[in-house]
């Protein structure tokens, strides 16, 4: 490409400003979308990879295969004492546990507790998680009176002063004084490890944990192992069934390995790994967004090639002239490839600017903190410019250089590629709009689903509900808890306060229990067991399907002081009716189940959905303890302003239990956590597909303008032969409508398969209605018509004699 080459490119771009803007702008937006979404995918797939030798670390999973149980599949938690038993059986094993973590404990200062990410870890922790230390050493953790804190925690509690050697009161199982022996760098954003304060794991089970520490079947913390290679990990995993059978026999029946397996999950894969019955839709979301980014770039490239080849014909005369003046084919190919690479490079640069400008918006929409790593992005974009430039420029370059000079110069007609060229361009429009329509369908389904879960029936009213989780904190005594509940009930605006071991939004205890069915062999199906106290049903007001709710008038309703063999009353949910083998709720009333632990069903209620909409409703039974809040959450049903209520509860809490930080959240905000990831994905998807559609439109617009220009003469002929303006406009719009309509054949199956897979990740989901598909098609058609209508109308109004003279 010589000086004239540059000049001719510059003039060609500045002379056809709109064309240049579409061509370069479309590609730039495509590159920006691709950049941002690949940053997102890179972030989501980079979890824990920042750790030194991350590939040698494994998360121990408990895998359950229990018939009829709500607990199925692999969970990233283990029994507390598992590592201790493993060490006994496999000497030399390198592992650590993390107990607590996110909001796992608190720091008490001047009698006031502040919730912190306190994690109790084995002293071998740093042999696995070699966190960068700013001062002190990881091995100091061997001392049980020592703590290591993060940089921002040090700043928060000690300011600019040197924290080493200072002491702080940390409440984990119980409040204790610790000496700061080291400061580690804050953990990066791409980690699921949540710890800002590390303390030592006690050698013996801590108070209150003794009864479950070595109880097989319980899961309470995360256990990590380190192996030199995958081979060693596999070999270890192979020995697990025998280990489970030997150690678990006393708890899990004769053949424990049949219902429970221990498996190793490479830590770097843990972030996107679905837990238990959750389907892989998190992985799917990340993959889908990656694909959106890639396809948007593809659409933009397709556009570029499309417009470039379409325009190539218009430059035939220039090519012919250059040939006459002595340019050979090689020189021409070099010129056009050079132009293409240069144009794409300009687009890539603009794309980078757009990505940088758009990143704050995307971060805000997606709750992310992505930044552009220039060291990777810039060489990547240069490579992209080269590849896309060559790919996009190759066909036009070859086609143009092949034009026979003489015939081009002699004829008035410009070679536009004929029917084959038209077909190829039509195919590209089909591909583009196919993807665009699929994106529109996807966006509609995603937002319908995320809207649905926000408004779907949970079995209780989600507004006016405040869950006080800190009532279950080990720092609150039972007597204190009772006083607090009584005081809460007296607050103005409070209608009911219910206590239970888990509440709306999940958390707390998750217990399941086998319930034997009379006349049937075996221990029976597993049901979720919810322990509730007074006020629970008043606070949640479930719909009663049959029988009655708990009532203090019935002595057998109360489980306090329960002894083996004594029959007690339970309330079950609708799902448990069929699990327990009853034909109808009415039939279940009065029946006794449970074998050695007889329980009589007195009521059936509609499901109360406390957990993520991704999981199915569990068959559940409720047991009632009249006087024991135990380790319970309090749920407050109130009327009036949420903020005022939170304020009142906060004041009361700080007065009655200052040693424990208050953790009280509205049901709305707790449920929002379930929805957050999907909301985020939906917003990113909507932005990505919106831009993909926009780029598609830009392409269509450009193509329409090119086509209309190329058909000016044809329009003139048709008008001379008696076609009205309407006839011509119809013709031009119709020409673009056909590929857009054919695009549905691509879009519908694609969107159907993808959306069915995504929705399968939700138990509570919207139906994949045909309206989404029809709606998207109508939207795309409307967009396409509007895109080409203006120029079609303009072209159709041109005077035929002018059009006939037009060359």
């Amino acid at each position, binding site marked *: 490409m010589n000086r004239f080459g540059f000049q001719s490119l510059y003039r060609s771009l500045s002379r056809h400003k709109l064309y240049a803007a579409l061509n370069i702008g479309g590609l730039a937006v495509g590159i920006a979308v691709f950049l941002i979404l690949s940053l997102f995918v890179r972030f989501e797939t980079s979890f824990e990879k920042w750790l030194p030798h991350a590939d040698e670390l494994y998360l121990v999973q408990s895998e359950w295969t229990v018939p009829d149980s709500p607990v199925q599949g692999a969970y990233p938690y283990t029994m507390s004492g598992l590592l201790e038993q493993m060490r006994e059986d496999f000497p030399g094993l390198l592992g650590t546990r993390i107990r607590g973590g996110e909001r796992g404990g608190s720091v008490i200062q001047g009698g006031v507790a502040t919730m912190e990410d306190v994690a109790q870890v084995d002293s071998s922790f740093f042999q696995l998680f070699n966190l960068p230390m700013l001062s002190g050493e990881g091995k100091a953790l061997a001392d049980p009176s020592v703590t290591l804190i993060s940089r921002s925690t040090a700043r928060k509690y000690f300011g600019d002063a040197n924290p080493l050697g200072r002491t702080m009161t940390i409440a984990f199982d119980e409040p204790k004084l610790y000496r700061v022996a080291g400061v580690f760098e804050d953990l990066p954003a791409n980690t699921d490890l949540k710890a800002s304060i590390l303390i030592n794991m006690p050698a013996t089970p801590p108070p209150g944990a003794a009864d479950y520490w070595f109880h097989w079947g319980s899961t309470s913390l995360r256990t990590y192992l380190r192996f030199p290679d995958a081979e060693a990990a596999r070999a270890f995993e192979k020995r697990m069934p025998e280990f489970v059978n030997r150690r678990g026999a006393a708890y899990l029946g004769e053949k424990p390995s049949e219902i429970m397996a221990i498996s190793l999950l490479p830590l770097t894969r843990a972030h996107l790994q679905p837990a238990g019955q959750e389907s892989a839709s998190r992985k799917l979301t990340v993959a889908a967004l990656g694909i959106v980014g890639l396809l948007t770039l593809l659409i933009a490239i397709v556009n570029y090639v499309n417009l470039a080849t379409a325009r190539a014909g218009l430059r035939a005369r220039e090519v012919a002239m250059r040939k006459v003046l002595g340019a050979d084919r090689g020189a021409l190919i070099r010129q056009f490839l050079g132009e293409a690479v240069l144009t794409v490079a300009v687009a890539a640069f603009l794309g980078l600017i757009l990505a940088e400008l758009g990143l704050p918006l995307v971060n805000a929409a997606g709750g992310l903190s992505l930044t552009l790593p220039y060291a990777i992005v810039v060489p990547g974009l240069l490579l992209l410019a080269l590849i896309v430039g060559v790919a996009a420029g190759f066909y036009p370059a070859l086609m143009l250089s092949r034009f026979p000079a003489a015939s081009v110069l002699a004829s008035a007609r410009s070679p536009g590629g004929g029917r084959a060229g038209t077909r190829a361009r039509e195919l590209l429009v089909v591909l583009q709009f196919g993807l665009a329509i699929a994106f529109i369908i996807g966006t509609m389904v995603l937002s319908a689903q995320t809207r649905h879960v926000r408004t779907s029936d949970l079995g209780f009213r989600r507004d006016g509900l405040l869950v006080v989780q800190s009532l279950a904190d080990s720092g609150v005594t039972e007597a204190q808890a009772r006083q607090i509940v009584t005081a809460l009930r007296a607050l103005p605006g409070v209608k009911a306060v219910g206590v239970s071991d888990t509440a709306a939004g999940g958390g707390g205890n998750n217990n399941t229990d086998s319930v034997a069915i009379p006349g049937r062999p075996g221990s029976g199906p597993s049901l979720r067991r919810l322990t509730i106290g007074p006020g629970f049903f008043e606070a949640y007001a479930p719909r009663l399907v049959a029988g009655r709710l708990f009532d203090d008038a019935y002595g057998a309703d109360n489980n306090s002081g329960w002894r083996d063999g004594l029959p007690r009353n339970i309330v079950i949910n609708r799902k448990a009716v069929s699990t327990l083998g009853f034909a109808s709720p009415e039939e279940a009333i009065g029946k006794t189940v449970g074998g050695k632990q007889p329980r009589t069903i007195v009521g059936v209620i509609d499901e109360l959905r406390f957990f993520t909409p991704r999981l199915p409703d569990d068959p559940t039974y409720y047991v009632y303890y009249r006087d024991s809040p135990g380790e319970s959450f309090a749920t407050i049903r109130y009327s009036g302003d949420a903020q005022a209520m939170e304020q009142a509860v906060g004041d009361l809490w700080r007065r009655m239990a200052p040693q424990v930080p208050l953790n009280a959240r509205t049901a709305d905000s707790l449920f929002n956590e379930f929805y957050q990831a999907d909301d985020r994905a939906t917003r990113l998807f909507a932005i990505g597909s919106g831009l993909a559609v926009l780029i598609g439109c830009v392409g269509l617009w450009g193509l329409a303008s090119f086509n209309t220009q190329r058909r000016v003469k044809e329009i003139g002929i048709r008008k001379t032969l008696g076609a009205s303006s309407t006839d011509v406009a119809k013709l031009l719009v119709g020409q673009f409508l056909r590929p857009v309509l054919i695009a549905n054949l691509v879009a519908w199956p694609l969107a159907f398969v993808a959306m069915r897979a995504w929705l399968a990740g939700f138990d509570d989901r919207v139906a994949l209605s045909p309206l989404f598909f029809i709606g998207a098609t109508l939207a795309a058609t409307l967009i396409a018509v509007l895109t080409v209508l203006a120029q079609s109308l303009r072209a159709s109004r041109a005077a035929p*004699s002018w059009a006939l003279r037009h060359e």
Partner: protein
Amino acid sequence: MIRLENIQRRYVSDEVETTALKDIHLHVEAGEFLAIMGPSGCGKSTLLNTLGTVDRPTGGRYLFGDRDLAALNEADLARFRAETLGFVFQSFNLIDELTIEENVALGIAYRRDAAGNRRDRVAAAMDRVGIAHRARHFPHQLSGGQQQRAAIARAIVGNPKLILADEPTGNLDTENGAQVMNILTALNNAGATIVMVTHSPSHADIATRRIDMLDGRIVASATRAI
């Protein structure tokens, strides 16, 4: 059949005013074969375009039969062209993306009075100009003479009252030119009214009447002695 009275056509662009037609008075009777001659830029094509209603005069009256065409709007003019006129151009003006058959069919595509079988009419028109064997071909696969015959088929397929031909032999060699003229003569003999612009005196001689133009005016008119 046609009466042009005091037709004026002026173009204004960039403050330059060009007068293409001045004080044109012209009568064309049904069944006439009129040839228009004159040097390049004298207004021949503008006159033909005015007759074809694809160009509107800036002054004067255009009566077709007893209809005043100045009173018609764009849509009505389009219908008038579809139902009344046939066009033949120097550069054929076939549509590249359509086959010969489809191009010919375009001649009646915009007629609302779809009398008879369209396919038969297209076949008959192609037969008449001897192009039927090329029906499925595209224009660029045909010789110039064949393309012009296809264009004539398109012009006559609708049985127009008036055929307007703008240098129909201008892009053809002698032999093909003669062929085209034979077809036009045959059409005229069969009763068609034809107005033709031409540079060729010999072709003009074939017409029944000839007018000469210069600088936008009709300067001479001569009727061939039969």
